[in-house]
């Protein structure tokens, strides 16, 4: 049944831009401070107050749009989007309508091993609203967020599956975090995602009726909500029920979408050019300088990791999933010069500790990068076995101690001095002449017995590789 339909999904992602002050006033944008503490006369929409565009917000918007490969428009315009709501003090939101700051652009990412591209329609600047909290008979308004600069990133409706939509949204978040223009926190609302979903019979030239899914606060739910919505719409088509243009919300407990308002109930926003602001004119050198200041993006980094370090796709995707993780990799590898070793240790042990621990960001990792590099060097020089290193790393993570310190405290250290191991082996062979004969006459199982004896004699600190090598020589 699904095979007969084509799915078109377009995402509108609202990203709060990280600036010191608000988009049109000098109030701070700090999150989570006391209610209504970051509110100026302008934010509160007092009579006679006027907006003034924050240059920093424009700069961050340009950087963001550039990171998404958009074309920055030299001329753009702010408009008023009008509707009444208590947490929107002016009775209108200043936004960009018919002349956005950025057009076009695209986002590349890998989906099930294949590189895919989502083309963008546009990206435009706007101000955030405040926050209302409802308490039955009354509501409280916090205007701290009112006026925070946002960039709305609008994709073309060319996303074709729920998983692609979620992967696209994750990639946008990753790109924004790489560029340090948005902290990308869905739960705190610094990144918000509206999804427009439509289905049409295969071969139809026009898009199906679109339904907007709003206020979904995790990538997992984005995927589930869209998936549900696709099936619901296909079901409608199959049964001949009309799909109406509407806004729907997602109930994550029931895993269902439900109607919030129909198109006829939607506001006429009566957009018109904001007369309190001049048109925004950007000169080329400003755009150029900001573009230059952009760090390497995640996809470029990931592709470089494959080329430069010979890592495979999965490894490089994992290592570049967070900018700080990629930085740890590169830092540590500079000292260790064994990308595969660093990658393996990061992908397994380090990631396990990270996931099990209570930190949320790699930059808060309790293990110093230099110490981690030292640990890996000890594996390289055969001072530690893999098993020992795991133990050491765990303690490093928990205590923040240096690996050498832990090794000394625990009396761990792999004997890799061949002559010392050889002397031990000679003694053991001398003491077990009968077994040597049995081994030589074909009872190869006894090899394990000899290894065990050496390990016992060295208290487990002999390098297994060295033991194997010397034993094989001696027992020939």
């Amino acid at each position, binding site marked *: 049944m699904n095979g007969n339909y084509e799915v078109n999904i377009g995402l509108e992602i609202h990203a709060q831009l990280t600036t010191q002050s608000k988009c049109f006033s000098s109030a701070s944008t700090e999150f989570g401070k006391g209610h209504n503490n970051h509110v100026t006369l302008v934010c509160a929409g007092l009579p006679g107050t006027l907006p*003034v565009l924050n240059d920093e917000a424009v700069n961050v918007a340009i950087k963001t749009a550039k990171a998404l490969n958009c074309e920055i428009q030299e001329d753009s315009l702010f408009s008023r989007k009008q509707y009444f709501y208590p947490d929107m003090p002016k009775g209108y939101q200043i936004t960009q309508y018919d002349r956005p700051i950025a057009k076009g652009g695209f986002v590349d990412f890998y989906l099930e091993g294949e590189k895919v591209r989502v083309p963008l329609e546009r990206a435009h600047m706007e101000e955030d609203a405040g926050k209302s909290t409802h308490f039955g008979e009354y509501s409280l308004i916090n205007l701290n967020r009112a006026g925070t600069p946002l960039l709305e990133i609008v994709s073309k409706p060319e996303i074709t599956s729920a998983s692609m939509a979620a992967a696209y949204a994750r990639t946008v978040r990753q790109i924004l975090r790489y560029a340090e223009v948005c902290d990308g926190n869905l739960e705190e609302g610094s990144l918000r995602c509206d999804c427009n979903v439509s289905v049409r019979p295969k071969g139809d030239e026009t898009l199906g009726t679109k339904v907007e899914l709003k206020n979904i606060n995790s990538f997992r739910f984005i995927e589930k909500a869209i998936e549900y919505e696709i099936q619901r719409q296909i079901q409608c088509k199959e049964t001949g029920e009309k799909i109406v243009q509407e806004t729907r919300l997602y109930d994550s407990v029931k895993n269902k979408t439900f109607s919030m308002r129909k198109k006829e109930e939607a506001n006429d926003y009566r957009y*018109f050019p904001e007369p*309190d602001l001049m048109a925004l004119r950007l000169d080329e050198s400003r755009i150029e300088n900001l573009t230059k200041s952009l760090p390497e993006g995640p996809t470029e980094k990931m592709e470089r990791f494959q080329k430069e370090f010979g890592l495979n796709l999965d490894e490089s995707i994992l290592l570049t999933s967070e900018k700080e993780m990629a930085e740890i990799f590169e830092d540590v590898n500079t000292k260790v010069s064994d990308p595969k070793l660093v990658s393996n240790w990061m992908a397994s042990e380090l990631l396990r500790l990270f996931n099990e621990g209570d930190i949320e960001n790699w930059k808060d990792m309790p293990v110093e990068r230099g110490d981690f590099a030292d640990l890996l060097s000890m594996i390289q020089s055969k001072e530690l076995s893999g098993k020992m290193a795991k133990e050491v790393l765990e303690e490093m993570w928990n205590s923040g101690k240096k690996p050498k310190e832990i090794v000394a405290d625990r009396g761990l250290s792999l004997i890799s001095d061949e002559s010392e191991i050889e002397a031990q082996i000679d003694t053991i062979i001398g003491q077990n002449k009968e077994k040597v004969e049995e081994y030589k006459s074909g009872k190869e199982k006894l090899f394990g017995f000899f290894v065990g004896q050496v390990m016992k004699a060295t208290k487990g600190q002999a390098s297994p590789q060295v033991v194997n090598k010397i034993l094989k020589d001696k027992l020939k």
Partner: protein
Amino acid sequence: MIDLSVEQIKEGVEKKEFSAEEVCKTFLDHCQKENPKTNALVRINEQSIQRARRIDEGKLTKGSLLGVPVIVKDNFCIKGLETTACSKILRNFVSPYTAFCIDRLEQEGAIIVAQSNMDEFAMGSSNENSAYGLCKNPIDHTRVPGGSSGGSAAAVAQKMAPLAIGSDTGGSIRQPASFCGVTGIKPTYGAISRFGMIAFASSLDQAGTMARTVKEASIGLQAMIGKDPQDATNVSFSFETPDFQSNKKYRVGIIKEYFDSGLQKETSDQLNQLIKKIEEKGWEVVEVKIPHTEYAIPVYYLVAASEASSNLSRYDGVRYGLRDIQREDGQNVNELSEFYKLTRTRGFGEEVKRRILLGTFSLSAGYYDQYYIKACQVRRLIAQDFQEAFKKCDHIIGPVTTHTAFKINEKCKDPIEMYKNDLLTVPSSLAGLPCMSLPLGHDDSNLPIGLQIISPAFEDSKMIEFAASVEKLLEDQ
């Protein structure tokens, strides 16, 4: 003392010939005495005496307006004072800050003695749309003082202060100045910061001054001009102090369409006499055309109402001003939209509601292109007309209104008739040009007739120089 000019008061205070307190007291008393005749003022600021005392104590010793009493239209926010734009919806709103331009006046030593009556949110041409009741024309109490800065014009005519501040969106300084026989200047759009001036139509609103003479109005204007980073539409430009003794020769433009607009006989007679004098003086008189004049009224009312419908959205009863939650049946509202409706229905007056509806309609989906966008296009054509005209002349002179002050209630029933009163003042507003009104003479009923001067953008200072020359020419009559 009430006859003293701005300069005379400033010099007297500076030289300690009299104290600022004395001046302030005199004008406050005069305000108290005169106001009941016209209702030009909505609030008399008795506390201003303390500011005057500070000047006398030497806290402020210099300033172009040192100790000069000033009356401010009720749409400029002043810290600690109620500021309502004469609307019920802002009743009891005490501003926590002072408008940039008013702050500039105070820095120059001005004493704000009172706040003046106006049409609610500056919407009107007669000062009949005020929550504080109408204001009467001081020359004939059966007539209107004009609007929307009717209170400021009347107050100057009644000598309640030598200087008053008004705002002009489509003629709100020039028309009442003309009706009350005083001088009023509206500078180039962008010359004076709008920060703190309660918005009516953002792309048109400009603060300006009213006084008995060109020079006094100019001194006030110069104090208010200055770059303000809080207003993105405020332009930084140098306003040179005008030469009030200038003997320059001018090419004076006469707009044909303005003279063909059905002028009252006395108005056209006196304008023609002035033109004759100008020619005799050896200045050149040229006829210029503003062909799109006939569209100015609809264009203005679409643009201004559209912007107003948006600017007035903030008066929702949530954060300040009127907040009505009790229905007529005594029950409280239980829905957000009902709360908005109740507050805004009771808070706004009829004319304001009419314009909000008109503006909301013209910005609505399906009508936006044919009304708002079209109006903006024609607005640009009008601006181009003026640019063409100024290729042929330095300044334009003409009437301010077709007729002198009309009777109270005469045009209230017919908004279109009322709007048509702005025919000759809105074209230059739409073009953002500096323009002013000065007393030309009187009609047969002794009502003042005003002369309008329109000049190229940012030539405010030159306009004032020219106006001073014309003023002298008229005095010599």
